[in-house]
């Protein structure tokens, strides 16, 4: 039996609940959907990002408010939760940046082979997750 005549599952009009759980994406597909998800996440969290910029940079007093958000918390949210959300922003930014640079590289050098798609996807995921873990460990005071 040749590769082509093998019966493969076909997905049309993917159902978010029935099909997404079994749908197997190649790594380049994961980079692609995570590029979108990370961008969407940063859009939703944009007011928090501006707040972090505002308090960190405006004055020494506001800078203390900025710092205490990570230790004493902010409003009803405890400090560890703020750290977790900021870590999510850090991951989203790193992934979006590296996946975006991958796009630019592919456009500039016409790097559109299947092999490059896969190897650059591995690179993108490894670097973004690796840097997130390193910065996350710093954020949570592990070193």
């Amino acid at each position, binding site marked *: 039996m040749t590769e082509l005549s093998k019966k493969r599952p076909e997905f049309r009009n993917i159902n978010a609940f029935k099909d997404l759980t079994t749908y197997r994406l190649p790594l380049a597909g994961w980079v692609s959907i995570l590029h979108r998800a990370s961008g969407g996440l940063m859009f939703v969290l*944009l007011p928090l990002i501006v707040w972090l910029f505002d308090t960190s*940079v405006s004055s020494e007093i506001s800078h203390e408010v900025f710092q205490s958000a990570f230790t004493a918390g902010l409003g009803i949210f405890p400090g560890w939760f703020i750290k977790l959300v900021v870590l999510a922003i850090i991951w989203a930014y790193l992934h979006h940046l590296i996946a975006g640079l991958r796009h630019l590289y592919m456009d500039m050098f016409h790097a559109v082979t299947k092999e490059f798609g896969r190897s650059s996807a591995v690179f993108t995921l490894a670097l973004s997750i690796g840097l997130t873990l390193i910065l996350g460990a710093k954020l949570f005071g592990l070193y």
Partner: protein
Amino acid sequence: MTYGSKRVVTGAHYGLRDWLAQRITGALFALFTLIVLAQVVFTSGPLGYEGWAGIFAPQWMKALTFAVFIAIAYHIWIGMRDIWMDYIKPVGIRLALHVFTIVWLVACLGWAVQVLWRL
């Protein structure tokens, strides 16, 4: 002739324009990240408030940051519009989300610009 195979980037609504704008604004933000990061890394000793605020103090940095903020707001607009166009089909709901996106972005942009220029 400026259509067909001779179309130009500066022309209107070829579909290429937003694609190119997304890449240029993204590259600008990557460059901006590098500029900020370099100043953070090359600060001697702990950064603290003074060092961090000092990065945004020079007039050239304010002007650059201002331009980059506007660029990234446009970048987010193109990205979010693409998301809504892919997943939201009813015109009324999509229009409402487009309006929400613009209000959300312009409000955040105004806030960020205010923070920047009162430094």
